[in-house]
């Protein structure tokens, strides 16, 4: 330990170190220690160990912050910060990554592309997410974003012999790179305006400037564009349907919850931090993006036959709801976004898990008709899917309702009645297309009677997502309190 790397620095960095360490270890052990295909389950165990160590580090941060009664703990001269916000999101990432890893094992076996690198990529992507949630410096955030995105580029194209997967990876890479370019441009302008890469110092510098300053506007618009790309909000959503459809389903699941949650965390850090004083300028942009996302996402989802594509459009509309919470801007709204992301994580993982569980030799399982008669074949998964779809649609007593409820409440408290009414009405549209899936599961007869083959890991993941979705809906109090602590400032 020295003045450049203090005990605090280490304390803050432990989870990320663990994630990176185990990520690299899996990469090497894959051919050194466990070269046989059958031994890959040890890699899964290693991933679990890595998550456990990262979780332990996080837990220590958690108890330290709570015990000391401090709001935040900064490290590396203020470029990393541990606060309620970062803890909230990082716990969520641990849950998401673990569930995704659990459901991946059998899926990759069936796809015939089971390689140890996959687990390493999950951990390294999560490492990137860690920096997105706890970064307080433009460079840290940007590096975290790229670390996460690079892992995702590879994972999206993980099915090397599948053309759709390759196409998806290429599209995602090009558009992702494009958006990173925008973001980097915006960041360089922000640096130019303030002379610092620290979010807090940028905030001070921006607050002193005239809000109508054209350079500031340019910096803000380019940053916003880059961020909207990452959360797949309209009009920067074009990559999402293709990437979601082509990627291996487990990766789609990870992409839709992990990457989205991390990007939302990133977006909140930027908009509620340095750009908070320029609210008047970015608010109309976000209102437009939110309403456009709701419209395009919900309407385009209606005509989809591929579930993954349908969920891609639905995830676009959910990005719209999350943005609305930010637009409302009050405490309820920000808390609402946090709750919404948490709920969305469990719910969407549950939906994708059912699709993953459906996959077997000779059945892709991503067409709505593939779900026909699921009720009869395996009622447990049908029930899980039903609960999760009800939650996505926002029907009580599932968790999704709590999320939607907070967003609506915040809009009403902020006096934005038209937005609240529009958001509420889109729920009815969403129900229509979610219930197409329900209809297929419960009201059509199965085309083939083949039972589902599941493994222990998939069942554990199913139980976790189901419990999360129902538990948050019925006993929201502890989760709400947790989300309440996550408010920035």
């Amino acid at each position: 330990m020295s003045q450049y790397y203090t005990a605090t620095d280490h304390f803050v960095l432990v989870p990320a170190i663990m994630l990176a360490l185990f990520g690299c270890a899996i990469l090497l052990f894959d051919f050194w220690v466990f070269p046989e295909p059958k031994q890959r389950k040890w890699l899964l165990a290693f991933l679990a160990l890595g998550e456990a160590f990262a979780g332990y580090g996080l837990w220590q941060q958690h108890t330290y912050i709570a015990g000391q009664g401090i709001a935040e703990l900064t490290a590396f001269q203020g470029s990393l910060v541990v606060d309620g916000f970062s803890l909230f999101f990082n716990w969520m990432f641990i849950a998401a990554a673990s569930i995704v890893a659990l459901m991946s094992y059998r899926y990759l076996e069936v796809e015939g592309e089971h390689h140890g690198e996959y687990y390493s990529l999950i951990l390294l992507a999560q490492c990137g997410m860690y920096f997105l949630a706890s970064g307080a410096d433009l460079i840290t955030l940007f590096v975290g974003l790229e670390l996460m995105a690079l892992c995702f580029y590879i994972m999206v194209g993980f099915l090397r012999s599948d053309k759709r997967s390759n196409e998806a990876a290429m599209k995602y890479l090009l558009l992702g790179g494009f958006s990173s370019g925008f973001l980097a441009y915006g960041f360089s302008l922000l640096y130019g305006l303030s002379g610092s890469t620290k979010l807090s110092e940028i905030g001070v510098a921006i607050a002193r400037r005239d809000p109508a300053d054209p350079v500031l506007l340019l910096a803000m618009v380019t940053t916003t564009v880059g961020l909207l790309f990452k959360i797949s909000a309209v009009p920067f959503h074009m990559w999402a349907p293709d990437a979601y459809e082509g990627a291996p389903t487990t990766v789609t699941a990870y992409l839709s919850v992990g990457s989205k949650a991390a990007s939302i965390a990133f977006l909140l850090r930027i908009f509620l931090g340095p750009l908070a004083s320029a609210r008047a300028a970015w608010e109309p942009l976000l209102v437009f993006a939110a309403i456009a996302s709701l419209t395009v996402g919900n309407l385009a989802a209606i005509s989809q036959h591929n579930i993954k594509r349908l969920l891609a459009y639905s995830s676009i509309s959910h990005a719209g709801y999350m943005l609305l919470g930010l637009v409302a801007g009050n405490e309820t709204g920000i808390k609402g976004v946090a709750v919404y992301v948490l709920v969305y994580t469990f719910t969407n993982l549950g939906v994708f898990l059912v699709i993953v569980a459906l996959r077997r030799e000779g059945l892709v399982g991503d067409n709505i008709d593939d779900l026909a008669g699921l009720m009869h074949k395996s009622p447990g998964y049908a029930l899980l899917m039903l609960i999760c779809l009800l939650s996505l649609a926002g029907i009580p007593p599932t968790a999704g309702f709590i999320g939607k409820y907070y967003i609506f409440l915040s809009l009403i408290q902020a006096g934005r009645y038209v937005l609240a009414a529009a958001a509420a009405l889109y729920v009815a549209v969403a129900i229509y297309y979610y219930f197409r899936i329900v209809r297929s599961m419960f009201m059509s007869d199965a085309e083939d009677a083949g039972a589902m083959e599941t493994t222990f890991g998939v069942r554990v993941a199913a139980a976790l997502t189901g419990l999360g979705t129902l538990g948050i809906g019925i006993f929201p109090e502890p989760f709400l309190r947790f989300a309440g602590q996550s408010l920035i400032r």
Partner: protein
Amino acid sequence: MPESYVELYFPVFLQVLIAMAVAGGMIGGSYLLGRKVKNRIKDTPYECGITPTGSARGRFSVKFYLVAMLFILFDIEAVFLYPWAVVYRELKLFAFVEMFIFIVLILCGFFYIWKKGALDWSQQERPPEER
């Protein structure tokens, strides 16, 4: 101390102007003064006077690209050693540990590609599934 941006950047501006004038002047001059002959031989690629043979679109083994990419990767990582060397005296042990970790990480990647066979020239017929 120069007072404004104009003053500060005037030499640069002048430099750009002169460069453009020289380049333009040379091309323009040769265009005006030179003799122009047009025939088929003149249109062929210039290869030191020897008649070109074969197609210009030859195919290379993908290994060349792989090696080129790997070279760039490790080369760029090596670049980080220069600033490290500069501040080494100031940072002392911390810099040493830091660079040690950095190199271990690079070595991880190096072992990985080595074991994956990316550096293996000889085995041409590796089935893609074999590890």
